[in-house]
């Protein structure tokens, strides 16, 4: 079971990567713990989460091939 995590904006710099794969993750909250473990600095940043290109605030169960994006406040336009 493998999910893909995308880091955008300043988080790509904080994590040193744009993409990281996580294995055997149960849910979004579970994933957040694992990410913070790897990159404790992330706790200082505001970000939203999307699951398979859909913004979500819910703690959803994850399945293999899910794509989770960590997105700081948008700054386009």
């Amino acid at each position, binding site marked *: 079971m493998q999910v893909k995590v995308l880091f*955008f*904006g*300043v988080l790509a*710099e904080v994590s040193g990567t744009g993409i990281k794969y996580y294995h055997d993750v149960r849910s979004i909250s579970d994933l957040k713990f694992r990410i913070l473990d790897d990159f404790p600095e992330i706790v200082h940043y505001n970000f939203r989460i999307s699951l398979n*290109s*859909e913004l979500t605030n819910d703690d959803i169960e994850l399945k293999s091939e899910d794509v989770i994006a960590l997105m*700081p406040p*948008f700054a*386009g*336009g």
Partner: protein
Amino acid sequence: METNYLTDGPVSQKIITHLIEKMGGKTDSGGHMIFLGQVRADVIDGLKVKAIEYSAYIELVNVEAEKIKKTIFSEFADVKSIEIVHSTGIVNAGEISLLVFVSAGHRHQAMQACSKTVELIKVNLPVWKKEIFEDDSHKWK
């Protein structure tokens, strides 16, 4: 990376003229409103911005740009078409990083819808920007 809504580097004159020509064929439109967003050489803490580097979540840009268009079409019944092009990658100060092109039957909705589209883009499009200063330091916006 070229998609419906994103272009690599600055929005080129080629894209702008292509869209103007394309719109010319729509004879139900009486007004076109074009907004061009440009990178400004802001001075921050004594340092001048020389460029902005844009990054985007492409799949979500497509989803959100479609939603923006849907919102505009439903709010402005006279609007015939909406084109959005946002830069990714490096855009130098003085270059164009955003194009919004709205065509409507009449001028009022063309102008209002274009303005609203720009505001929705600023809130909803998953794009990020990093200001690059003349000393090559950078700051996330």
